């Protein structure tokens, strides 16, 4: 029987994978994808955990991911645009090669 706990473990795994990817990946696009994983891990958490509660508390958990999905879409749009503008100005999406700012 699959219960709430399984979903929470799944979401924790997803979150850790996403965090690891965001910290180690060199490609800007890959980092964006990793961040998406982290967002969706939280979404799974919300929906799964909402089954522990009733009434308004239940609905709060169900409604939260809808907002998050919309915001994540906006976030990716902005992120891709910035990656694209970096590519146009310095011909790379590799974060190691974007190293003009240091000190």
């Amino acid at each position, binding site marked *: 029987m699959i219960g709430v706990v399984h979903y929470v473990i799944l979401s924790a795994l997803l979150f850790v994978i996403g*965090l690891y990817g965001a910290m180690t990946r060199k490609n800007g696009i890959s980092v964006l994808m990793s*961040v998406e994983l982290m967002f969706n891990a*939280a979404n799974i958490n919300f929906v799964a955990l909402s089954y522990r509660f009733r009434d308004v508390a239940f609905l709060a958990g169900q409604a*939260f991911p809808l907002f998050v999905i919309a915001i994540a879409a906006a976030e990716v749009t*902005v992120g891709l645009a*910035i990656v694209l*503008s*970096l590519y146009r100005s*310095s011909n790379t999406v590799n974060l190691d090669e974007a190293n003009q700012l240091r000190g």
Partner: protein
Amino acid sequence: MDLTSLSPEILLLVLSVGILGLDWFLPKKEKYVIGYCAILGLSLIFIVVHFTYGTRLFPEAANVLMSLPDGGSYFQGFVVDALALFFKRLFMVAALLALVYSLAYFSEDAPFQGEYYALILFATLGCFLLVSASDLLAIFVSFELMSLPLYILCSYLKHNSRSSEAGLKYFLMGAVTSALLLYGISLVYGSLGTTDLRHLVSPGPVSLVRLAQDPVLLMGLLFILSALAFKIAAVPFHMWAPDVYEGAPTPVVAFLAVAPKIAVIGLLIRVFLSSMSEAGLFWSWAFAILGALSMTVGNLMALHQQNLKRLLAYSGITQMGYFLVGLSAMASLPPLSVPSLQIAYQAVLFYLVAYLFSELTAFGVVTYLSAKGYETVNSCRGLSSRYPIVSLVFLISLLSLAGIPPMVGFVGKFYLFVAAFSSKLYWLVALGVLNSVVSLFYYLRIAKAMYIEKESQEVKLGKPFIPLETALWVGGFVVVLIGIFPKLVVNLAVSALQRYLVGF
């Protein structure tokens, strides 16, 4: 539904959308008008909010929660209290100054001016909503509304690879931050079954015992705390700050060094302090460690910086350390000791005002310099002989950041350390004072370059731009004025707190 208590937000939204619309209708040669319109509109909103909010429209607004049937909130998500209004005025000042700096920094035929000014206003709207949010959902949405425009603004100089790089770094760090915040919120929701801040902070659920027994709740709150620490660039979450400050356009940096950080401190006051005082000792330690690290590391890194914006980034990290000292003092007090709590709250609110004016004035001068490409400490050499007024204003703001007596920064720091002292955080006070001394070194290095060293290269700043000069004059004047008459701001802070403290 009573929409009048939302009027600052509605007005600001109308203004920013109006700016976007104006951009459509203006011919290409007259786009520079947009910036002036944004400044005019925002000044009007400031006047409306400042003069009608507390008196005519809402006689009780100065110290009472908006009297809505369900206790002052829309859908349990939005609170209008005096504390939020105090913060909103600060954001408007920050945005106004950033707009003036932008006018001076960008040429009249710069591309995408409508979008630029609208985005600054949208980010301000995000800050407004963030300090009024009383639901975790509202907090998350307004946190994003505050951050997304700033990512775009940082990479605004499209053909400048440094600006794009700064934007990308800020974006990636910010996106991870948002994900941390969101995951933390999901854990807190899973543990408590509510996203309403009032349930979360009312004495009871988040006591020390509960935190020790419920690792999910503890982890959720720690995630939220670290996300907020990212946003204010507290050590060890500060890596993005120097790069972003250096690469992004200077007026944008001026805004993002002040408004989002103030908003997040407002949020910290709401989430972690207002009534979580049962677990206060735990948070006090968390803030104290973050603060001690930020002060020390920020200072040590600032010592050998050559780039002015980078130096100010590290100095900003240090300033956040001082705030965290104040927050730590607040959190360590038991909930019923109202007089000492009031001292601590006042200290933090006062230092917010001090930081706002000192930092923005310093960035105003840096905007002036960097508009012509001068960004290093060396390029300040001999500045005083050619530009005495600019140098004087720069000196005043730097001395204020360092905490030298006649300036407002000194009074602010004094209050903060007194608050920490009365909360028995002696080691933190000692560390803070020591760090203030160390920080003098790098602030005075700039002063020495301006006043003592001889000119090595010919610095040409172009002809003076009246709005910027006025803003610098006013900024420098305010820094000294509040420093000499701190009562002006203390009274404001007290009236912002009255109702808040009775709630304990």
